[in-house]
C-alpha cells in the first residue's frame, strides 16, 4: 500500500485492457442512458457506448490498476472528461494514466492531493476518452 510520501512526483503508467461487448453496453445504457443509439442493436451506423459507460470503465481499470494499491481517500471531482471517439462492441480499450502535482492538503495534515490524467485508447490507437481530475491520498505520517 503506497501512501502520499511513497508516490513519485510524476509518473506515467499503463494498465489493464477490456474487451467491450454489445451486451454490457446495452445493459448499462438500459439502466443509465436509454437513448436509442446506446440501446438499439440495429442503430444505423452501429450501436455506440454511452460516454458514462466508457467513463465507468476507465474508472474501474484505473482503480484496479493503480488506485487500490494506494491509500486512496477518493476524489473531490474531475476537471474535465472528453469523449473523443465512439466506443463500439468488439473494441479493445487499454487504460493509461499520468500522475503529477503531488501536494499536501491545506486543510488536513493527514492527507495529500495529486493530479491524474487518464484515458483509454482503442485497438486502432485512437484515444476514446481523456479525463483530468484530482485524487486524495492518505499521508503515512498520520500514524496509520
Amino acid at each position: 500500500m503506497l501512501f502520499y510520501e511513497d508516490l513519485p512526483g510524476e509518473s506515467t503508467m499503463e494498465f489493464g485492457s477490456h474487451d467491450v461487448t454489445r451486451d454490457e453496453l446495452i445493459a448499462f445504457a438500459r439502466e443509465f442512458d436509454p437513448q436509442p443509439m446506446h440501446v438499439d442493436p440495429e442503430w444505423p451506423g452501429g450501436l455506440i457506448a454511452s460516454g458514462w459507460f466508457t467513463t465507468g470503465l476507465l474508472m474501474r481499470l484505473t482503480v484496479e490498476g493503480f488506485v487500490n494499491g494506494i491509500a486512496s481517500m477518493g476524489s473531490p471531482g474531475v476537471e474535465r472528461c472528453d469523449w473523443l471517439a465512439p466506443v463500439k462492441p468488439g473494441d479493445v480499450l487499454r487504460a493509461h494514466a499520468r500522475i503529477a502535482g503531488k501536494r499536501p492538503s491545506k486543510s488536513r495534515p493527514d492527507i495529500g492531493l495529486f493530479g491524474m490524467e487518464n484515458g483509454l485508447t482503442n485497438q486502432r490507437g485512437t484515444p476514446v476518452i481523456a479525463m483530468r481530475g484530482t485524487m486524495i491520498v492518505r499521508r503515512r505520517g498520520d500514524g496509520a
Partner: protein
Amino acid sequence: MPWFDELVVGERWDLGAHVFEREEILRFARVFDPQPFHLDEEAAKASLFGRLSASGWHTAAVCMRLIVETSVRLYGPPAAGGARIGVSPGFSDMRWTKPVLVGDEIAYSSEIVAKRETSRPGWGLVSHRNVGVNARGETAISFGSSVFWSRRRA
C-alpha cells in the same frame, strides 16, 4: 422535441429524485468503482465520510438516466424528421461536494447555461449545469455537460 433554435438559456428542468439504496450502491461500485469505501461498511469507516457512500460515477449516471426520462416525458421519443438530441462531447467541472450515503434521496435538476452554433452543419451545442441536492438541501453533486442538438433547417 424543441429545435436548438427554440431552446432558452436559463431554462431549468426538474429531473425528479432518486433514493440510493445499499444494494444498488454496491452493485454499481463492484463493476465501475471497486474502491473499498464504496463496497464495504467496515472499510468505509476509515474513509473521509466514515460510512458507505455511493460512487460519484453512480450519482452522475443516475442524473443521466433522469435527463433521458425527463426528455421523453416532456417531448416524447424522438420523431422522424423532428428535432434530435445528438452525441455529447463530454462533461466538465464535476464536483462531489457531499457524500451520498445509503438511503439518501437526491433531487436532480438541469439548467441550460449556454448554447452556440457549431461548424457541424445542422447541429448546435447546448451546455447544461446539472445538480443533485440531498434532503438537507446540500448540493451533493454538480457537473457541466454539453450535447449536440439539431438545428431547424432554414
